[in-house]
């Protein structure tokens, strides 16, 4: 699904949802299903979401109050502000809370289609935020896509729908996302300052370091910008690795993006041989945007 966004907006994709946010906002991942948006290092908006299954309309209000209390924000329920009226067209249930301070206001929406609950909170008293909140939530996409888009900061990746996020890190110079699929674990890495790293280490060394093993069969291209690695051990070696609680089969790829000075890596570990085609979607879509 592709939509054309105004030039001052960017698409953010994370764990099943897609949002269009102002380009000058910085997105902070605070949890697997929690994003905080900042404008000049000041938090302005946050959103959390949770798949909860079917919701009984009778219990909606009391459940909402309970969920809102769990957020630890003192606020009382009020009528949905007119600026956010469009939300009722998109979501089957909406409820708005207003705190004593402008920053304590927010709401809860429920999407009937994908049975997901959304909590949003406006963290700034800026009057423009009403319009942005409405636009952001109305353009929010939470269902209908077969693949999951992961687009945050400067990278973009699409994974098949059945992949589930098991971990992530946004350390200096190293971003890692870990996924669990049916047969294997997949780790996606983005390394910054590639030229600095390659001045002290070879592509091969970085590849082996990321994979965490030395017995990887590597194949580099002539330009030394792509390194493909595989490990398909013999039966006895498989037994030995399984005794060490290691997954015997590895399929990995590390490539250099000279224009953006980044190294990107996809590493999959499995107990069974990994079909090469399985990772093609990740190889093709993992890029710097």
């Amino acid at each position, binding site marked *: 699904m592709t939509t054309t966004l105004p030039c001052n907006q960017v698409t953010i994709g994370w764990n099943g949802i897609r949002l269009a946010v102002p380009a000058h906002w*910085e997105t*902070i991942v605070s949890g697997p299903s929690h994003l905080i948006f900042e404008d*000049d*290092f*000041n*938090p302005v908006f946050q959103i959390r979401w949770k798949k909860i299954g079917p919701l009984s309309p009778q219990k909606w209000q009391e459940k909402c109050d309970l969920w809102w209390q769990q957020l630890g924000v003192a606020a009382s329920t009020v009528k949905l502000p007119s600026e956010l009226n469009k939300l009722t067209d998109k979501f089957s249930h909406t409820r708005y809370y207003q705190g004593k301070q402008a920053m304590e206001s927010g709401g809860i929406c429920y999407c009937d289609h994908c049975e997901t609950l959304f909590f949003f909170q406006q963290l700034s008293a800026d009057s423009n935020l009403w319009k942005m909140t409405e636009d952001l939530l109305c353009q929010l996409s939470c269902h209908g896509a077969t693949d999951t888009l992961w687009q945050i*900061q*400067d990278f973009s990746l699409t994974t098949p729908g059945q992949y589930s996020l098991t971990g992530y890190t*946004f*350390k*200096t*110079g190293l*971003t890692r996302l870990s996924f669990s699929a049916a047969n294997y674990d997949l780790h996606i890495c983005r390394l*910054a*300052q590639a030229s600095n790293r390659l001045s002290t280490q070879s592509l091969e060394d970085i590849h082996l370091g990321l994979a965490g093993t030395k017995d990887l069969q590597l194949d580099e291209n002539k330009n030394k910008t792509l390194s493909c690695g595989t490990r398909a051990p013999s039966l006895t070696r498989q037994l030995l690795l399984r005794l060490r609680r290691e997954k015997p089969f590895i399929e990995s790829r590390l490539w250099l993006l000279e224009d*953006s*000075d980044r190294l990107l890596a996809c590493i999959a570990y499995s107990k069974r041989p990994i079909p090469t085609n399985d990772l093609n979607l990740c190889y093709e879509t993992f890029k710097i945007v």
Partner: protein
Amino acid sequence: MKLSRLFKKKPAAPQAKTTITRTESLACIPEKICTISWHKQENGEVIIEYPLPLKPFFISIARRFYKTEEPTLTKKLQLDSVGTKVWLLVDGSTDVKTIIKEIAPWTGLSLQEAELSVTTFLRELGRRGLIIIK
């Protein structure tokens, strides 16, 4: 009186715990301590030389050996290129937020990564007593 009472440390007076938000901490201005010396090397990297804080017990021992003048023990800290850039930006008028914004495009890191890197570095400089935060 129990002997243990003599050696028991007095409980410290409760201090008012001040919590500072992230936004406030990013608006803080770091400043170099004027007593420390630093110079740039030929390769552009900075070496900071700062006095080593010694415990009074060790100072009293040192005094016995050096009757004329006590030597001032110093420690040297060599910064890498990123550390040097941050050190040069610490001028007593630039806030942490601006330093991060300067460092991010220079290193090719995202703002979030640069924030983590700069704040960790400034914390380390503060721990060694090389900067103060205003």
